[in-house]
């Protein structure tokens, strides 16, 4: 068995008290947490300090560890006589055992008081899956490649219609294999939707921008607009203002409960960047004839 210097791993003195050990661990854990640090070797470092802390925070394990005395890290050693009987899980020797497993076994002895190996649940995996808006609407099959102790495997996952941004899905029992009768782990899928060239999704409702010419907005129009099921005709009522949302009921995404969200056309009014002579003439004519003042209401409210 190889010796590991747990005190050095946490950067504390051998006589450090429990509070100092906890403080040192938390500081290092924050620094090397896989969520915070992306530098290579972070996970190994995090595991190393976690292993050191698991032993040193427990007074009994710490006392047993201290019994080993101080040795150079990585040094091959034999634990004191009597440990084989007291701590090892079976008659096997110590040569192939990791120090962490030994202290883990020690903890179980004290908790359970029996020698049967504890059931260990399989590891859970979390992964993000990005799918298109159309796939979220219609459902899709995605392939997940897994490489773990169980070997390489590919899962063909059927994503049901109706998932939305941020939806979590669970694949029961498809994670790591459990040991000693423990259940297999799960896989958690976090769904994100890829940006769509036309639509923006809010749960199962969809929004898109509809540009109108001033005369279409003023007079009303029948306009062909896109939906997930193909183009449809939308009636723009006369007097439609910029910013108005025109709803097409049930034309949004499938919601997974047999229904659909709505589709909203968000209106904005565009003007020609350059006018032909005739267009200028008509606009000038309208400017002279119209009594419409778009700021009249705002001015009235302000007074």
């Amino acid at each position, binding site marked *: 068995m190889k010796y590991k210097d747990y005190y050095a791993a946490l950067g504390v003195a051998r006589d450090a008290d429990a509070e100092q050990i906890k403080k040192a661990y938390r500081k290092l*854990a*924050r620094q090397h*947490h896989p969520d915070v640090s992306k530098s290579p070797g972070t996970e190994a470092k995090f595991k190393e300090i976690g292993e050191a802390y698991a032993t040193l925070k427990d007074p009994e394990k710490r006392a047993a560890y201290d019994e080993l005395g101080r040795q150079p890290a990585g040094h091959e050693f034999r634990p004191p006589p009597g440990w084989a009987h007291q701590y090892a899980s079976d008659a096997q020797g110590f040569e192939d055992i990791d120090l962490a497993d030994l202290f883990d076994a020690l903890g179980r002895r004290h908790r359970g008081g029996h020698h049967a190996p504890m059931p260990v649940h399989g590891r859970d995996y979390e992964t993000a899956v990005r799918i298109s808006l159309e796939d979220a609407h219609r459902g899709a099959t995605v392939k997940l490649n897994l490489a773990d102790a169980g070997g390489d495997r590919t899962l*063909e996952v059927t994503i049901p219609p109706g998932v939305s941004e*941020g939806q979590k*899905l*669970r694949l029961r029992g498809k994670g790591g294999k459990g040991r000693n009768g423990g259940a297999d782990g799960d896989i958690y899928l976090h769904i994100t939707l890829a940006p769509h060239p036309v639509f923006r999704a*809010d749960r199962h409702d969809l*929004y*898109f921008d509809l540009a109108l010419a001033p005369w279409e907005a003023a007079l009303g129009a029948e306009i062909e607009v896109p939906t997930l099921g193909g183009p449809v005709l939308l009636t723009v009522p006369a007097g439609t203002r910029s910013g108005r949302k025109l709803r097409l009921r049930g034309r949004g995404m499938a919601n997974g409960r047999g229904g659909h969200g709505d589709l909203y056309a968000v209106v904005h009014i565009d003007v020609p960047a350059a006018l032909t002579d005739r267009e200028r003439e008509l606009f000038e004519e309208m400017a002279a004839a119209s009594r419409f003042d778009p700021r009249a209401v705002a001015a009235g409210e302000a007074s």
Partner: protein
Amino acid sequence: MSTQAVQVTWLDARETLTAAELSRTCGMSPEQLAELVEYGALAPIDRTVAEPLFSGACVSSLRRAARLYRDFDLDLFAVAMLLGYLNRIDELEREVHMLRAHLPGHAGVASREGPQPWREPHG
């Protein structure tokens, strides 16, 4: 390499879990979960039944909080507070997402990855 076809379960209000299932899912003991319920950080769907059920919607934030609990050796009261904040962050992120969907694409957010204004073809 083997290929397996897999069905998924929704992890939202459609799915309910017993305390034992939730305990297994987030790696906390039923006693620890009961303490979180006492602190008001976790609520069963119906408190009056003998075996309380929890909504699948609470699994994701509870798993995150449980992971931080283990990774930083936090105390359970801190986890209860954390859970409240994680849920609040989720809620705010949903709101930001919703507001972005409502914002017109032409309103000067040119650097944003995402939809462009849809236009009728001219002519």
